[in-house]
């Protein structure tokens, strides 16, 4: 395909076609699910519709290569970065460095509305990390995610999450489906089946209510005060993502970022890389209210519906506005089916919910449970499952 299309073009056309074909690789490196078939389509399309017109090329590639909203949002920036003349040092860097910077850009987009200053901070952090390679472990922006891949605890976590997934009962829906047994006779289907036996209803068909598992949305606090627990919860989240299909995971500190895609990555090391990129600002301050509000604004209507269980993991230490937090929680609670808050500090004997964030949250919660470690989660599992039903 490539050769026939290219043969008809002049040298410059040839060059452009090769470049366009290379664009899929670039997108793939940025986490797009593009395939080899797509590059064939692109070259085909380009040959048909002309490639020298920038907007047309952009529109065509956009609808061809984007498969979901997040990709759609990031596309224009990536397109510019790849096709427009380089005005920055991006092309002087090695490929790997350029790639990782692009991915950072993507992550920022996912986190949505942050101030330009924030993006600058992130870039500064990165260069710092590169400058002081030796002190990398101490740098806040490059938290060591290798802990995520340790095998010893992983198996136990997986077993626990499997139990949670299995016991998370299916919700009953109003719609009925056919089934081999049930309480209501499916007359239509029974007559349909009786055609095979000459009009005598030998086999009866039944109707029963359809059941689905609730959707789960996990919001994990990864601010500095939660430092000791963040990895543990990420591991839980990853195990849960592997067990259940409809799980959506976000981390927040001063802003909120989706990590579902990164956690689902089958290659643990690549998952680690992607988390590294997403975790700019990891272990920083907390603005829970602001983050939840951002979540409501950007994901709320898309993600949270009347069959959604929201699980928030946080210690409730909030540097933001408490009224804002209460407001955001109220909105979220109205949309969701259930809301559960896991607080790792809760099973300390001297603990009382004095943190302003925790107090503001109390009226909206269906369950407030402790969860500092695996044993604690195991103890509250029955309540957790109960309250998510």
């Amino acid at each position, binding site marked *: 395909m490539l050769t026939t299309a290219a043969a008809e073009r002049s040298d410059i056309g040839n060059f452009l076609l090769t470049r366009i074909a290379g664009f899929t690789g670039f997108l793939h490196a940025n986490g797009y*699910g593009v*395939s080899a078939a797509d590059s064939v*389509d692109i070259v*085909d*399309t380009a040959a*048909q*519709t*002309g*490639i*020298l*017109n920038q*907007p*047309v090329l*952009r*529109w*065509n590639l*956009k*609808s*061809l290569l*984007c*498969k*979901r*909203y997040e*990709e*759609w*949002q990031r596309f224009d920036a990536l397109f510019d970065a790849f096709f427009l003349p380089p005005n920055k040092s991006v092309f002087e860097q090695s490929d790997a460095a350029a790639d990782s910077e692009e991915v950072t850009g993507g992550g920022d987009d996912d986190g949505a509305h942050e101030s330009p200053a924030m993006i600058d901070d992130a870039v500064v952090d990165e260069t710092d990390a590169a400058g002081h390679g030796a002190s990398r472990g101490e740098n806040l922006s490059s938290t060591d995610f290798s802990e995520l891949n340790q095998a010893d605890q992983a198996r136990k976590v997986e077993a626990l999450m499997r139990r949670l997934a299995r016991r998370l009962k299916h919700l009953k*829906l109003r*719609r*009925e*489906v056919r089934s081999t047994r049930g309480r209501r006779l499916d007359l239509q289907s029974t*007559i*349909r089946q*009786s*055609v095979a036996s*000459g*009009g005598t209803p030998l086999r009866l068909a039944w109707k029963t209510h*359809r059941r689905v598992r609730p959707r789960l949305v996990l919001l994990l606090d990864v601010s500095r005060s939660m430092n000791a627990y963040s990895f543990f919860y990420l591991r839980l989240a990853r195990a849960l993502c592997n067990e259940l299909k*409809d799980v959506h995971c976000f981390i927040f500190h001063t802003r909120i970022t989706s990590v579902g895609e990164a956690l689902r990555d089958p290659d643990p090391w690549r998952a680690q890389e992607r988390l590294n990129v997403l975790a700019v600002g990891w272990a920083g301050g907390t603005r829970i209210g602001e983050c939840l*509000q951002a979540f409501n*604004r950007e994901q709320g*209507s*898309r*993600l949270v*519906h009347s069959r959604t269980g929201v699980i928030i993991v946080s210690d409730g230490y909030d540097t933001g506005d408490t009224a804002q937090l209460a407001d955001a929680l109220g*909105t979220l609670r*109205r949309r969701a089916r259930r809301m559960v808050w896991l607080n790792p500090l809760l099973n300390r004997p001297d603990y009382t919910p004095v943190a302003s964030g925790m107090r503001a949250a109390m009226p909206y919660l269906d369950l407030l449970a402790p969860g500092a470690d695996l044993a604690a989660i195991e103890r509250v599992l029955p309540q957790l499952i109960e309250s998510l039903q």
Partner: protein
Amino acid sequence: MTLADDRIADIAGLQGQLESAGYVAEASLAATLLLTLDLGRPLLVEGDAGVGKTEIAKAFATVRSARLIRLQCYEGLDVHAAMYEWNYQRQLLAIKLLEQDDRPLADKEKDIFSETYLLKRPLLEAISCDEPPVLLIDEVDRADEAFEAYLLELLSDFQISIPELGTVKAITRPLVIITSNGTRELSDALRRRCLYQFIDYPDFAKELAIVKIKAPQAADEFARQVVAFVQQVRRMELQKKPGIAETLDWTAALLRMGITVIDDDGADRIIDTLSALIKTREDRTEFTPDVVARIAATC
């Protein structure tokens, strides 16, 4: 060079045609629609409720003067409602009637499972049209995963196999437009097969153009004010942002109430019409006379 120029002319042409069919489309959307024609792939359209996803299919069908076949997905949608079903009452009747007939059994059976007794549902209908229709699969996220798998099979081969009758191959390939509201994550397999278009809330110029087409009775200045007001409302933090349909409803409501200018003096009368624009109680409480007057003053 000329290739690209041709394409741009095509895009502008399609934009014009869509506009005369009552749909204001950006050049990028027109380009994508042309691409779906070229590649013969389905188009997946996503976006918030009320941004005009379904309207694309309707307008596109009008432009191509093709039939529009619509399959509204819902929870519990199954093959019988989407593809085909045997008209079993008639079949039973036929069995009784054929009892007196002394033709061989195989013939009778063939008779009973013939197309006469087949009820065509939208998907079968779409692939057995003589002229390629526009097939709109609306809100595919409401159907379940199992149905998505059926759909994939149809979209890749454009054929439906009916056990009693054999395989029905498409006479013409329908233009498939799929819409989704995102209540459920669609499978990667479906996404991979489709072209993708995300439709956002319209910007000022686009919405103004829509209002002018759909509500020609509104004066130019008034239409501009209405759109400016709605654009402001969308920037507020609301549970349910008003879509284009709401804008048009509201315009009609205002005209009906005899309001032909939006200013802060008429805030009280504007509030009476807001039920056409704001659809939840919480959002409604945000619109105190002060707020409305403030927004109206900027229009």
